């Protein structure tokens, strides 16, 4: 009976031999910030889906209609390139909205596994996000959440389009945006 642990280990060694291939896994990012300003004021800065001047990475923005489901905005980035987003949910009462990326321009083209790959300006796929403001007395908490896949949808991604690249880029967008929002609201 004492041999059993060894048998189990040996067995698992055999059984754990698996195919060396990876299916994409949905990733998430969340950044929260506490702002020393009333929720109304903070919400007032971000509430227009067509105005993202509060984010330091955005050069300019155009949008199709007011704050209603289906409104489309095109963000032109300071670093170059565009991101098109569609408003999917708007909740004035709860100070929150949700949107999806529907289109992005290409940052660069690389060759990977013998094929040409377009790396989008934000290296993600199927990106959806929501932002909401919650009052906490005279201050407020803003939560910005995103769910997405890496940009490369097949197996064995290149470095520019893997999960790490996606997570790093998204967290940077959320973090720099919220920090600037805090600076603007606390002015």
């Amino acid at each position, binding site marked *: *009976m004492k041999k*059993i642990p060894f*048998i*189990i280990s040996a*067995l698992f060694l*055999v*059984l*754990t*031999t*698996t*195919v060396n*291939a*990876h*299916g*994409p*896994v*949905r*990733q*998430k990012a*969340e950044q929260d910030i506490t702002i020393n300003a009333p929720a109304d004021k903070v919400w007032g800065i971000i509430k227009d889906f067509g105005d993202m001047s509060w984010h330091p990475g955005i050069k300019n923005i155009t949008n199709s209609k007011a704050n209603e489901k289906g409104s489309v905005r095109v963000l032109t980035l300071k670093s170059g390139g565009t991101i098109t987003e569609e408003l*999917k*949910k708007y909740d004035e009462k709860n100070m929150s909205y*949700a949107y*999806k990326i529907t289109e992005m321009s290409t940052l660069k083209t690389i060759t990977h596994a013998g094929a040409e790959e377009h790396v989008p300006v934000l290296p993600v796929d199927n990106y*959806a996000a*929501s932002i909401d403001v919650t009052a906490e007395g005279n201050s407020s908490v803003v939560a910005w*959440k995103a*769910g997405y896949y890496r940009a490369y949808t*097949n*197996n064995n991604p290149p470095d520019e389009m893997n999960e790490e690249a996606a997570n790093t880029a998204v967290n940077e967008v959320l973090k720099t945006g919220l920090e600037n929002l805090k600076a603007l609201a606390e002015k």
Partner: protein
Amino acid sequence: MGFHILKAVALSVTAFLSPIALAQPFAYITNQLDDSVSVIDTASNKVVETIKVSGKPAGVALSPNADKVYVSTPETGGFSVIDTKTGQLINKVALSAGSLGIAASPDGKTIFVADWYKNQVSVVDAETLKISTQLVVGQSPSGLVVSPDNRWLYVANRLSNSVSQIDLTKMSIRNTTIVGMHPFGIAVDKKGERIYVANVQSDDITVLTTVNLKNIATIKVNMLPYAATLALNDTRLFVTNQEDGSVSVIDTVTLKEMALIPVGDKPEGISTHSDDQHVYVANWFDGTVSVIDANTLKVTETIKTGEGSRAFGQFISK
């Protein structure tokens, strides 16, 4: 190295470990970003165990007598088998890279695994864990469900916007029909009369007859309906709206949405307790499970699980 050795070892392991105090039923929640499965004792609604499962576990199915949980692992391309009595991972089955949707037949003899990339469903013998056949279906097959009489397997083909009906006596496709945009989760009623398909892109549910795939209704729900389950003797259908953070409740007689229940962020997998009254919802973003009372249509509990709780499939033992 045969299966018999494994069985013998599994038996020895069972004999060695003190069995966990089991009070059925249990809910098995795959935490994809944590590489684990949370085991919830539904009597206390507490996580009683967390089982390490590598390969980014996503889909889940239970054997009919609840002695095993099958968990698809897309990253390692296959599925893992957990012995529910010991809470041990007892086997890993290698299939192909895009393994996601998984279902067990009600007679316990077969496990079906959909491959997202290869447009096929692997049919695996539950006893030997060997592939008996592979069925070519539509593009990016995702949700799978078997009719209660073991006669048909239904496959939601996400990128083909269709559902395939497979005759399990002949192991061939009998019929394929177009549904809404990007069907994902799929549920069948207890009587085996209707199937309900959640279409993630058209934000609706397609209701089909089980035998002829006749379209009975299309019901509008909310943003990104992901999966569905029935409760209260098939009179209510509960649908997770992933991007809306809610569950739509549909009256299956009028075929209309009768309530919308806020749950956690990005709800995905949904299953009904064996009491036919409580519905469990895995909230992917929050890493929690919401418990809904189908009578009061209220969330009665929220249980902390792990990162990226998906639980795509039938995850509560009967």
